[in-house]
């Protein structure tokens, strides 16, 4: 109910007209529905009892039927419209919320799952709102007025109808619980199944699976998962059907009881023959409405409630306050500094970075080398301000800055992305506030021109095969990523060596392009190509989260240490 209120609020804010129109339409529908029941009784009365004006009643009945038909079309349309609007409002709220997440949140698989569930839950929101509205303003109102009618005819009828409802209420709770239970039971199975299916057909697995002759292995795993899921679903279905039959039997008994009561009332002379047909019509419609409500709408509302809950859990989660929104001040000579910084991932058991201290001055180039898993990428992210350190300080021009200094860095990530927008936009997103002239300058560099000329629509070509554009080669992508980081004229650049294979000639070009920033900016280059490190001012060697060596290439080669070991491991091939 709480979610209903929140969604109503969103819907009222973003589309007031439609939101108000829907309950009004529903009320008209209820009136027409009541009119139908009354008129039908009247018509029967006319024919059987032989008095009253049959043709007038028939004409009115026809009008009500037409009105009902039209009203139904209208409200369906407006439900669609509201649904669209709600989806938009909720999506937007979700996007904004997720944008506020600290990057570290994405490292937590549980949280990523929650984002995924919220994403799939968005669609349920509109349906949830709609079903609740139908239940409240249409079915509820209709049932209420019908109950009043039955009360008026005879309270006994009312009691019987109510009695027949009881098992439904029970079933309703049981069904939902068993459904949820089943979903929980199979959720991991289903994810595994997805994975194993992908191992057979998805591009990232298929060729290796075939070459390894492992298809039958995965097939067997899929079979096992499928039959497990089948069993679970079947169990839930059986349980549900049992209840369903019980409920239907109780409806049946209630129905028979009503016939009995009607006959009894006729015998007693308390209702006339004419009223019998009215009661009968009312009884059948009330049952079909109840059934629609419980088996259709309420159940739907309840199953979508879970999905909606997942959305709102994300939306309503308080985020760490980022009150330090103050902009960092850039001066002519900037210094970025880490002082005794230690860091560990939220779920981690060990510090990934230990007691790191370093300084980068504007105009200085630093190479960060070390074995896999020594913490290089994490250090880059701490330095850029993505990850707040556990201990120690990140200082900008000597002043403490917790998270707000993203704008002082530009970063090319190891796993940079190409987006399905035009080439120009792919670069422009580096800084959307850039004046046109500068954007042109970046796009008109020889490297970019070379890429553009190879594309069907030049810089307006969409970079995605899937959406009817083209795909760039690995080397071209890297150049676009670097150009993107260039757009943002930051005092510091961090380049995390892209692992995508790139041929030696281009590699040298790229490295020099990256280090070329040197003239104006500070550069931190994370690399495995130790040879490149000879071109920088200072080298930091990271081992198990600690800086074990620092200095220029010549200095470090004189020491018997990690650096020399790494350098020789690689240079031996070129002797």
């Amino acid at each position, binding site marked *: 109910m709480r979610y209903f209120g929140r969604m109503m609020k969103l819907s009222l804010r973003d589309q007031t007209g439609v939101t108000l129109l829907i309950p009004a339409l529903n009320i008209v529908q209820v009136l027409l529905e009541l009119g139908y029941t009354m008129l039908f009784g009247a018509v029967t009365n006319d024919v059987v009892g032989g008095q009253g004006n049959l043709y007038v009643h028939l004409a009115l009945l026809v009008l009500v039927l037409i009105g009902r038909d039209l009203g139904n079309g209208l409200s369906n349309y407006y439900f669609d419209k509201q649904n669209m609007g709600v989806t938009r409002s909720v999506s937007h709220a979700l996007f904004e919320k997720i944008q506020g997440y600290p990057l570290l949140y994405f490292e937590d698989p549980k949280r990523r799952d929650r984002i995924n569930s919220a994403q799939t839950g968005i669609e349920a929101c509109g349906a949830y709102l709609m079903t609740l509205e139908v239940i409240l303003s249409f079915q509820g109102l209709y049932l209420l007025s019908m109950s009043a009618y039955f009360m008026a005819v005879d309270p006994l009828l009312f009691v019987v109808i109510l009695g027949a409802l009881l098992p439904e209420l029970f079933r309703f709770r049981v069904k939902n619980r068993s459904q949820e239970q089943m979903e929980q039971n199979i959720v991991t199975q289903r994810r595994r199944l997805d994975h194993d299916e992908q191992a057979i057909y998805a591009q990232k697995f298929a060729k290796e699976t075939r070459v390894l002759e492992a298809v039958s292995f995965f097939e067997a795993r899929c079979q096992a998962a*499928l039959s497990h899921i089948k069993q679970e679903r079947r169990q839930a279905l059986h349980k549900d059907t049992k209840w369903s039959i019980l409920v239907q039997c109780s409806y049946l008994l209630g129905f028979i009881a009503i016939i009995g009561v009607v006959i009894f009332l006729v015998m007693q002379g308390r209702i006339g023959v004419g009223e019998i047909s009215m009661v009968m019509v009312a009884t059948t419609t009330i049952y079909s409405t109840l059934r629609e409500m419980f088996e259709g709408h309420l159940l739907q509302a309840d199953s979508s409630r879970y999905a909606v809950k997942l959305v709102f859990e994300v939306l309503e989660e308080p985020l760490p306050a980022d009150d330090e929104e103050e902009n960092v001040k850039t001066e002519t000579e900037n210094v970025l500094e880490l002082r005794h910084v230690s860091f560990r991932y939220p779920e981690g058991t060990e510090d990934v970075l230990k007691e790191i201290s370093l300084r980068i001055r504007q105009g200085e180039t630093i190479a960060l080398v070390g074995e896999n898993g020594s913490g290089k990428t994490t250090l880059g992210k701490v330095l850029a301000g993505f990850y707040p350190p556990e201990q120690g300080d990140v200082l900008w021009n000597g002043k403490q800055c917790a998270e707000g200094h993203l704008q002082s860095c530009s970063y090319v990530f190891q796993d940079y992305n190409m987006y399905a927008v035009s080439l120009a936009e792919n670069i422009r997103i580096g800084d959307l506030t850039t004046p046109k002239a500068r954007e042109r300058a970046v796009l008109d560099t020889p490297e970019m021109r070379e890429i553009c000329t190879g594309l069907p629509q030049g810089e307006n070509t969409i970079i995605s095969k899937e959406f009817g554009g083209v795909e760039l080669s690995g080397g071209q992508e890297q150049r676009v990523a670097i150009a993107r980081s260039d757009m943002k004229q930051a005092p510091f650049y961090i380049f995390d060596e892209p692992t995508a294979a790139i041929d030696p000639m281009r590699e040298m070009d790229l490295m020099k392009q990256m280090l070329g920033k040197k003239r104006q900016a500070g550069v931190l280059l994370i690399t495995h190509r130790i040879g490149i490190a000879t071109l920088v001012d200072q080298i930091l060697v990271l081992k198990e989260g600690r800086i074990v060596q620092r200095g220029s290439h010549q200095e470090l080669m004189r020491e018997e240490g990690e650096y020399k070991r790494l350098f020789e491991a690689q240079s031996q091939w070129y002797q």
Partner: protein
Amino acid sequence: MRSVIKIIWKMDPTRMILAVAVAVVTGIVPFFYVTAYAHFIGSAESFLGQQGMGTFLSILIQFLVFGLFNFLGQTVLNYLCQEIQITLQAGISREVLQKVNRLPYAMLEQKEQQDNIYRMLHSASGEMSAGLMALFMLLRLVINVISVFLMLVQFSLWVGFVLILAFIPMVLAAVKNGEEDYSAFVEVEKAERWMQYFQSVLLQKKYAAELRMYDCAGFFREKWKNEYENMSGSFLRTKRKMYFRVKKNSLFFQIPIFALLFYMGYLAQSQQLDGEYFSALVSQILLIGSSLSWSLVSVLSALQRCRLSMKAYDGFMAEREERQEEGEKLREPIREIRFEDVSFHYPQCEEQVLSHMSFTMNAGKKYALVGENGAGKSTVIKLILGLYDDYDGNIYINGVERRRISNLYEQVAVVFQDFAQYEMTLEENLTLGNSCEEKRKHLDRWMRMLWQEEEIHRVFPKGYETELGYLGETGKDLSGGQWQRIALVRALLRKGNFYILDEPTAALDPMAEAELYQNFQRMMEHHGGIIITHRLGAAKLSDEILLIDHGSIKEQGTHEELMQEQGSYFAMFQAQGGLYQ
């Protein structure tokens, strides 16, 4: 439609028959209702006199029968359909996966085919069983109409035919509507794909760091919003048109029914039709009329969807298969690989990736393929492995044309550039299900070769049982380099000993890289193999280097020979090695 029934018939005949029976029985419900109701109203007078206990009971029994069918019929039908769906889902998945395995690999590289398979595995069974359910609803509606028709005919043949005549155009119009709606939603689907894409950009981890770094989330939100407006605009337009049409038709076609009402009223008043039957019949006619004009639309669109997904399924199952059984078997390890004037371009792409390539490789020697990105190195590997069949020229392995060999995979061990990261236990990752005592020994040996003892304990706390990836409760993710080493051990465990390694060092640090190259040299010492690499220092150790440029071999020879030539290889080597002087 016929093939859906055929499939379901094959998988679950009993429930199918039961469901048809239930649908037929629930179809006759109006008949029971009208009889019972008419009887009830008709004999109401008799209760007034406190007599007629017998009528009382017979009425109750009639209603009981009606009620049983009415209240329980739907539940049973639902149950049966869901059972069928559950069976169908497992069955279809099995069939589809088996089919995938028989398809040529090249087909799996097509985006449409991937989407197709995904849909088949995830939504096809749902759409098929919804189609089946719709079919039952249709059956029931038809029987509804027929039973009411039969009752009407008892009073007036003429009235009965008017009813049928009124219903026929309604059905036809609904059929037409269903088709139009479906085609109208294609546009909506296109915008939806864009929306989903931008949505994932805004929400997924993959993009999170970049969006924050460049502060460009607003840009993508705007893009999303545009697509959304686009989508919802054309969706609502379509819907508006559809509702309008449906309602217009239904009003139009209900006119004869309304006329019928008045005529029946006239008959009733002039005592040609019993009053009790009049009211029972009228209520049923109105009910059927509204369900024809309304639920018929959804029934037909479900049928349409089912038909389309069935068509896709049938089309998929009929795709060309590879794996000729009559192929020859290699009975001995690979001795020689020979390319004779091989040219190749990828399907759906004009550009030649390889042109007129010829070379011979012998087992026992180590070969390095070097060259720029996109020169065609990986394609050579894929052709050797038979992942593509549509090449010109000939590839001979031990003198047998590649296309005729059926068991090549037994003789090779491959590590791809984009090695697979299977999210299951370490042991499963390495042995893929065929683990035995002897394998275990090899496993330990190879693991120790590539991993340090301390590292094994740290990274795999539960030993071979450690779950890799996030699927398990306790799963953990590995770094790219760690995954790569797993892929290497996996390849080493293969029976085949002709090694093919596609740039295995991309994610390795210098120490691991150096160690690895040494291991490879040892490994390939006796059996030989091919390595694709950008690190020319590693290429140097090979017996023969093939420099590939624009799909053909530009330079070929030992390191020393190529260095003396002072060509492209020399230039590349200088560029890379220069830094290490």
